């Protein structure tokens, strides 16, 4: 790990620990989990060049599986979460296998189609899923601990969330990640170099689905319910939105994007009568003004300021 990354890591964990103190715990929980979800989208989009417009399928599959397991068998939440991750990855394998055969906007459409099918299927399986009412009253269980309050659950689940972020970080900075980036930049060349590009893409897709499943599982258990909203196409759209807002291909940008979108949604819900106008205008403004995402813009500004400060400091010393 580079020094800068370690510094970032410390800052990140610090923020994660303090978040419920600054905000209220339910919002803090939503932010870290959506951030993890957005990171899973960035993993594909920013590093693999694959825009998944159907990632809600894995977030939702994880959420429903974990919620049902926790409710039916009264499992501790980490165990139920494992179930959620398992289902998400099991689902991501065939969907990924089929989707990676297409590229660009077609890839986006294939993933969207599968996510929509899952949405309707879950809605139809109402004996199991509760249809539009959702799976309600999911218990938050951890032996030896009371998780009645959301802040307790936040800290109890934080290690799992951090593991999720760490896995994403490791993937990106491993040789596997570098091959992925070279496939994104020029697939034909990577192929010519002898890499089985399809297999790389599929593995990336399944891993990304697993991380989304982890986030979704914790989200459902943390909220004490899983509902159809988890699987709606706007959920996929939101995750992409967060990634692009924050800056693709940075991982931490996805987290920044998630925080911005949720803080905006949360504060707008009490302030304005027109959340759509505000969100829409901000989205248009950011795409036109900061195409590489806010995180990248911030990073650049920070670098500029830093260089300036150093120059000033150097001038003083001289």
């Amino acid at each position, binding site marked *: 790990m580079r020094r800068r990354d370690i510094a970032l890591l410390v800052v990140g964990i610090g923020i994660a620990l303090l978040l419920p103190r600054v905000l209220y715990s339910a919002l803090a929980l939503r932010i870290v989990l959506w951030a993890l979800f957005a990171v899973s989208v960035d993993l594909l989009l920013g590093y693999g060049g694959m*825009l998944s417009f159907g990632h809600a399928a894995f977030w939702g599959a994880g959420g429903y599986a974990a919620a049902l397991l926790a409710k039916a068998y009264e499992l501790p939440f980490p165990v139920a979460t494992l179930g959620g991750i398992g289902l998400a990855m099991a689902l991501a394998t065939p969907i990924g296998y*089929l989707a990676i*055969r*297409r*590229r*660009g*906007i*077609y890839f986006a*459409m*294939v993933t*969207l*189609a*599968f996510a*929509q*099918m899952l949405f*309707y*299927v879950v809605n*139809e399986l109402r004996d199991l899923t509760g249809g539009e009412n959702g799976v309600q009253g999911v218990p938050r269980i951890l032996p030896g601990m009371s998780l009645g309050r959301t802040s307790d659950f936040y800290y109890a689940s934080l290690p799992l969330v951090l593991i999720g972020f760490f896995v994403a970080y490791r993937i990106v900075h491993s040789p596997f990640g570098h091959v992925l980036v070279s496939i994104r930049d020029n697939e034909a060349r990577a192929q010519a170099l002898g890499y089985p590009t399809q297999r790389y893409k599929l593995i990336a897709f399944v891993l990304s689905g697993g991380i989304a499943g982890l986030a979704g599982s914790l989200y459902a258990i943390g909220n004490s319910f899983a509902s159809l909203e988890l699987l709606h*196409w706007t959920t996929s*759209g939101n995750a*992409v*939105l967060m990634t*692009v807002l924050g800056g693709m291909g940075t991982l931490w940008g996805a987290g920044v994007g998630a925080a911005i979108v949720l803080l905006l949604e949360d504060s707008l819900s009490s302030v304005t*009568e*027109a*959340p*759509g*106008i505000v*969100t*829409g*205008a*901000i*989205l*248009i403004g950011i*795409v*036109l003004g900061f*195409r590489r995402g806010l995180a990248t813009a911030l990073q650049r500004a920070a670098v500029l300021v830093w260089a300036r400060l150093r120059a000033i400091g150097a001038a003083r010393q001289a």
Partner: protein
Amino acid sequence: MDLGYVSVQLFNGLVNGAFYALLSLGLAIIFGVLRVVNFAHGAVYMLGAFAAYLLLQQFGIGFWPALVLAPIGVALLGIVVERLLLRRLYGLDPLYNFLVTFGLALFLQDAMRLRFGIQGQPYPTPDELSASVLLGPVSYPLYRLFVIAFSLLVCVASWYVIERTRLGMVVRAATERAELTRALGIDVDRWVTAVFAIGIGLAALAGVLAAPMRNVAPLMGSELIILTFAVVVIGGLGSIVGAVTAGFLIGVLASLGAVFNPAFENVIVFALMAVVLLLRPAGLFGSREAA
């Protein structure tokens, strides 16, 4: 379940198909020339319906003039949007324009809600078309037959424009061989605004046709847009004939499927989309991947 019943459902499917065809035709020519997947297409459909409503409410202008005026008005708005927003992002990843139009859809829907409320507004069927005709054993609303006929007419006219005029030639060339067209020295950009306006106008036209039979409300196009995406993908993203054919085809298939199980109407469309993408990635009528 007799034959008469099934054939009436066939007509219902054609009515739905008429809307899909108009919407996906606009979406396809916009994508073909601009490489923009217009997420705001559903919102434009809604604007068309509201334009018809406003013309009637504010100026007493009825359905027939609205059929011409509303699409033109909305298309003018489209020109402003193209000049102000989309133009800045050509040549970049299509993702950016996808997001801009997504933001635009949110904006337009919310703006209309603030002005008109969420509930929807009434719009009458034009008197000339309020009768029913006998279709076999069932009496069938004349207005629905009109929707099918009119939409077909517009699609054929669009086909004519695209096949026989200079504008159409550029559109075709740009859709099928964009780089080559530019290389031949044809100034594609000059035609871009016009093409966008036409695509927008077609969606608005679908909105006017929908006003007498669907709820005229700010969110009327918000779910429809996803379905339209599926239609365009099945037809072939850049293919004009494909968009229209797939529109009618899916309208009919979904309606006939619904005869057996109404609940699975939604699944049919997306399952079909997945199958087509996997077997014929460029869509039923697309010649090659255009993305």
